[in-house]
């Protein structure tokens, strides 16, 4: 009976999207004039957006409903120099201690500073196989969209909602609209999935995805490995879309098979047959469709103070005078003033002080390997600081096994413990006022990487090329 009742949820007559399938199969109940109650399969938790939620539970005398659907880690406020709490400031120490106390009190599994599984929340979920196709996954972090690369509906929530999920394993949600983004064509040399997503955000704008879940498809997406797909989904939020989705395929299944939390034996076979149906049907209706041919795409880099302000690396800094929309003109002028950049100058050759390789966007093995491929037996420019921060302790160990740490260190870069680090500069890793950085992270907002710091967002390849040149450089000039 139970089984029949459950599968009724999937029964539909007209072609549906991948999003629709996951939504329908997780919608517990919806009253008229109310949002839907959505069941949450997996809840990831970190130290910055959870303490007030645990306080809320305590005040109301509530428990965590499903500790075994919840996993906590520490990533935002954590030290990367050494693992002593004292190497971050007092308030960060307190935040980390509070996380330990909350998890202990409420029985939530925690990968703390000493745990070999610790890392950036969006890196560890996939690498241990917790993130699986068809799931609903939430976390008090906007980059939860990352997990959509596995065909899971994953989105960021606020702390009130963290409390809701802790208490009820469910969430009230308005149904979003759907957008299909198809990338077609072969990825040119030196161009990566980071460049695809920066090109898309430039195209549709930082508010272009508001109200939508974006599904990515097309032959270019199918050729990407899981790390690259995660980069794509990760930055969906930078276009305003809370979630990005890629339907699972053999690449997804091969990635998952054998991971610690992935189904085993009969469970694997049964799961696989369910996962294989997780794709948008032929003729499914999307509220919006976009097609981008990437055959002629150049590596992308941002020049302004939000991720939409990007350009091909071999182009010039745009001139606000040429912008016809007065509001956009004002934003662009303000951004260039903050960045202290001169319109009309080429992007290549702009000076930089720091290179940051890491984050939930580009802190995985593929990212480190791709940067290391340019840095091998080379030296970064004198006077430049380069921080390499693996996305997780597991990535760190793997990179060390492959000798990547040695390549980075020999090149003159710093090799750190894992964490969010300079992506949002909460843990002491930060730019000084006025400094320029090429960063593989996701946001170039004013002051994001430190008060007065200036960020150029780019791929790991572009970051590595720029580190060698000591200024913004085109990775295609370094690939032989």
């Amino acid at each position, binding site marked *: 009976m139970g089984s029949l009742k*459950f599968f009724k949820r999937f029964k539909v007559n007209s072609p549906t999207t991948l999003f629709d399938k996951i939504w329908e199969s997780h919608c517990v109940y919806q009253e008229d004039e109310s949002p839907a109650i959505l069941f949450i399969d997996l809840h990831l938790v970190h130290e910055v957006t959870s303490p007030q939620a645990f306080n809320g539970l305590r005040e109301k005398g509530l428990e965590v409903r499903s500790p075994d659907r919840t996993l906590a880690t520490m990533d935002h406020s954590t030290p990367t120099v050494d693992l002593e709490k004292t190497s971050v400031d007092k308030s960060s120490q307190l935040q980390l201690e509070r996380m330990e106390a909350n998890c202990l009190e409420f029985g939530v599994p925690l990968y703390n500073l000493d745990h070999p599984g610790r890392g950036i929340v969006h890196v560890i979920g996939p690498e241990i196989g917790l993130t699986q196709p068809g799931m609903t996954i939430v976390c008090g*972090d*906007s980059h939860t969209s990352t997990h959509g690369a596995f065909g899971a509906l994953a989105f960021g*929530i606020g702390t009130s909602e963290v409390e809701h999920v802790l208490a009820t394993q469910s969430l009230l949600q308005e149904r979003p609209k759907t957008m299909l983004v198809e990338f077609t064509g072969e990825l040119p040399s030196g161009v990566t999935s980071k460049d695809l997503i920066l090109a898309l955000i430039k195209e549709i704008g*930082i508010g272009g995805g508001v109200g939508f879940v974006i599904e990515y498809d097309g032959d270019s997406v199918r050729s990407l490995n899981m790390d690259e797909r995660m980069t794509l989904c990760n930055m969906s939020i930078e276009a305003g879309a809370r979630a990005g989705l890629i339907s699972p395929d053999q690449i997804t299944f091969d990635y998952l098979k054998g991971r610690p939390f992935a189904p085993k034996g009969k469970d694997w076979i049964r799961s696989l047959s369910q996962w294989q149906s997780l794709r948008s049907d032929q003729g499914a209706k999307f509220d919006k469709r976009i097609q981008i041919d990437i055959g002629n795409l150049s590596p992308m880099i941002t020049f302004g103070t939000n991720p939409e302000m990007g350009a091909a690396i071999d182009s010039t800094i745009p001139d606000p005078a040429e912008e016809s929309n007065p*509001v956009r003109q004002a934003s662009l002028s303000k951004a260039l003033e903050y960045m202290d950049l001169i319109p009309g100058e080429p992007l290549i050759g702009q000076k930089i002080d720091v290179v940051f390789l890491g984050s939930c966007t580009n802190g995985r093995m593929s990212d480190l390997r791709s940067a290391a491929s340019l840095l091998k037996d080379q030296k970064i420019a004198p006077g430049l600081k380069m921080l390499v921060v693996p996305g997780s302790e597991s990535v760190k160990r793997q990179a060390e096994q492959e000798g990547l740490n040695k390549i980075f260190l020999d090149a003159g870069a710093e090799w750190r413990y894992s964490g969010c680090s300079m992506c949002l500069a909460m843990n002491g890793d930060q730019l000084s006022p006025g400094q320029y950085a090429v960063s593989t992270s996701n*946001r170039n907002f004013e002051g994001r990487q430190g008060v007065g710091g200036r960020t150029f967002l780019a791929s790991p390849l572009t970051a590595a090329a720029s580190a060698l040149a000591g200024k913004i450089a085109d990775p295609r000039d370094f690939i032989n």
Partner: protein
Amino acid sequence: MQKFHIIKSKMIPLLQNDIDTDQIIPARYLKVTDKNGLADGLFAGWRYNASGDEKPEFPLNQTIYEGAEILLTGDNFGCGSSREHAPWALVQWGIRTIISTSFADIFRNNALKNGLLTLEVSIPDHEQLMEAIDNKPLIEATIDLPNQTLSLPKGFKTEFMIDAFSKKCLKEGIDPLGYLLDNADLVNSFEQDQKMAGIYRVTTSSDYYANDSNLSNR
């Protein structure tokens, strides 16, 4: 949470598009474990100069806007990070409504759970409001939540949309958690169905790392 009914207030203009949550409250103010004291970090990067003093030209620092409860901003307000510290800081500073042509999804969700109304207006209405402030900086707007109207003293009046559920939460000053708790049985039976259907369930509590062999990653 303060109940929201009708408010009448001056509008603080912060007319920029895409104001992100890193501007609303920078990450360095997020190292807290409670909700107290966040108003100090509100728009910190724009509000203070390098030595930490308030910049007199920044609207929130101007005495004419003291006690104002409405912020008039550009498109896509609240984009970026999911930090609920952003609406907490705004509310603690005294803001109860933000008027814009559009809001980022997570910010809007967070705001509405904290008694902060995200009031979306059309572009022509937005232009009229800007013009009204230009002519008369201290003009007071009236926001009537029960009737879903926004009006100015001399004739301007517009209706705004808000979903019935959020409206109820704002009016009663409640968080939707109660609604979810009331429906806990439905969630329980849903989970039971999922189990019966043979959907594989992850169990985060199994500590695979306890066994050293799992330390070697592929």
